[in-house]
């Protein structure tokens, strides 16, 4: 119950902010942070629950963005349709990737997903309709009546996506699917022996995770009014999507959310404060510090604190 109140409050807050006179910059920065919430949550479904480290986030994200571009260019589809289609396309890609690679364990799976990025990237570069390597500039339609600017609307859309993503992740976590995935993470053989349909579950997680990543990418072309392959299939998306749950904590749906908000905001702040090479360093250093010093992320730290607190009493 508490969770659903939180959900409603978040959506209401996002919409309220967007309709209020809050500074426009907030929505640009907020959009990016929310986008990372979706990506980190999506990554965690496969990476956190099932322990399959997906490096291909950029591939799913990029395919989502390009699906939206194709639909927009071809039929001028509205944003909602673009997002749905992007989720389908990336979900399909996730399913395909899963079929091909889920029998691989550990880092082999990770490398295979890296390969998916390069293949998708190359395919888009060779596809002239979406601008090829040059990229494509888009003129976005006017915003919906209620909103002052298109970016405000995109911010709300991304907030809804983030909330939806978290709901899905939470559902998976508490349902039998999540239990199955955790069993896979702990010991795949044991899970298989005790009757967990491992391949089916992994395929499901891969598809859902991919679809969410695609949905996160879908509004990007409208956000930038421009899309080109090098930055859409940027490996940095993969690294961030992995670093955020690691920093937040991978075992609970709240972990990636905390990690994304934390790291995403730090990235945004550092970009406009330190603003030189050092801001690239931030992700690296934070990632290393957290995996070394706080293997269970922020959530793990909080839990430890709580435990200390209790035991001191």
């Amino acid at each position: 119950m508490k969770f659903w109140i939180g959900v409603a409050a978040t959506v209401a807050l996002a919409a309220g902010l967007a309709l209020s006179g809050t500074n426009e910059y907030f929505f640009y920065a907020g959009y990016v942070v929310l986008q990372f919430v979706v990506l980190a949550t999506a990554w965690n479904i496969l990476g956190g629950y099932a322990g399959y480290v997906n490096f291909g986030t950029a591939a799913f994200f990029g395919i989502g963005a390009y699906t939206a571009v194709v639909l927009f260019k071809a039929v001028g589809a509205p944003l909602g349709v673009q997002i749905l289609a992007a989720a389908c396309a990336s979900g399909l890609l996730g399913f395909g990737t899963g079929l091909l690679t889920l029998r691989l364990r550990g880092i082999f799976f990770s490398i295979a997903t890296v390969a998916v990025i390069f293949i998708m990237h190359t395919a888009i570069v060779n596809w002239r309709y979406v601008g090829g390597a040059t990229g494509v500039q888009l003129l976005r339609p006017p915003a919906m009546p209620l909103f002052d600017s298109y970016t405000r609307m995109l911010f709300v859309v991304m907030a809804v996506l983030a909330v939806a993503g978290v709901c899905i992740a939470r559902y998976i976590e508490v349902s039998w699917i999540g239990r199955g995935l955790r069993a896979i993470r702990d010991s795949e053989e044991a899970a298989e022996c005790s009757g967990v349909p491992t391949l089916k579950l992994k395929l499901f997680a891969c598809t859902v995770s991919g679809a969410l990543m695609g949905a996160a990418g879908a509004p990007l072309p409208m956000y930038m009014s421009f899309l080109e392959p090098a930055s859409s299939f940027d490996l940095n998306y993969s690294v961030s999507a992995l670093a955020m749950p690691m920093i937040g904590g991978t075992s609970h749906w709240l972990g990636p959310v905390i990690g994304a908000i934390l790291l995403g905001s730090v990235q945004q702040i550092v970009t406009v404060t330190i603003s030189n090479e050092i801001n690239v360093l931030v992700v690296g250093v934070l990632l290393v510090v957290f995996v070394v010093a706080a293997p269970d992320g922020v959530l793990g730290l909080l839990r430890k604190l709580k435990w200390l607190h209790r035991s001191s009493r």
Partner: protein
Amino acid sequence: MRLASFVLGLAFSAAALAQPAPVKIGMSMPQTGSLGAGGKAALLALQMWVDDVNAKGGLLGRRIEFIVYDDQTNPALTPGIYTKLLDVDKVDLIIAPYGTVPTAPIMPLVKQRGLLLMGNFSFQVNHTVKHDMWFNNSPWTDASSWSDGFIHIGQKAGAKTIAFLAADQEFAQNLANGARTLAKKAGLQTVYDQNYPPATVDFSAMIRAIRAARPDIVFVMSYPNDSVAIVRAINEIGVGDSVKLFGGGMVGLQFTPNMVSLGSSLNGIVNYNSYVPGVKYPGIEDFLQRYAKRALEAKVDPLGFYLPPFNYAIGQMLEQAINATKSLDHRKLADYLHKHEMQTIVGPIRFGPDGEWANPRVIHAQFRGVVDKDMEQFRHPGRQVILWPEQYKIGEAIVPFEKARGK
């Protein structure tokens, strides 16, 4: 104690009141990522302009405050940075980041808000958006402005066939498409046409293929890393005696570290440029001397022919327009920029309706007599002999290519 600090604070705010608020100029500049090297050199030139103006007493009697962020050559970051500049930092004027990719995402934003945007070496970025308050500083307009010089020189040398080698990335592809059209129009027969992917390690195979195709002209559109690798490969393998002209759109051969380390293997190559010594623009030599000193400290491109003068020119154009209109109003400034010829250290600039130069002047120059491991030689005219455009021309192209290399 508290009182003292209160009084002190009061005194400060009084001083602040006495001095007019600064003119805030903001931009994002790639300082890391693929355009980072050029971006840093360009930024230094703009900083010099800001210092110069402030030393003279500022704009309209107000100091300039220059706010710059690093966009890491990542287009996804620039919309956020520019809204921050506009809405949080409340800048009065904005300048575009160096390059097309970081600039493209901010065009709709600028148009929607009706802002003046000074472009920065981008390529046809206003083509779809068609914003009438956009003014680019680059000496080229469309693809033909870039390549017609090269093709013209080639035809003059009696060329009948052409080969293309182009990086499979945004800028090079735009150029290549333009060049292909132009070559067809000029009646040149294409005997080889290859796009290559980013991060190609070795070009030997492609150079060999070009050699086998025996073209008269080889038009190369490449990015810095590739340019260096290509020059090395032609040095090692040779492009054959059929080739009269080699080069055209190789980005990176304008950068000092590359020129110095490639040294004599540059000889013979005819390549585009924005400025080379020998072009007599008023004030440019003084600028370059001052730049050289500061570049040494800032560890950026020590010669700075390619980007820095044009970035300084951005400042000069703003300065001229503001002083003439006595205003920071974007519309008024844009009108002024449209109507008047601007005087800069890269010569007079007049803008066409699309905000690109009305009279593009991409220089094509041939490397000659370059020796190894010597940076100073490039400061003197004659190492890069201007072949195009006619008004700056110093000499004729030496053909064929292998002869121009002195081999």
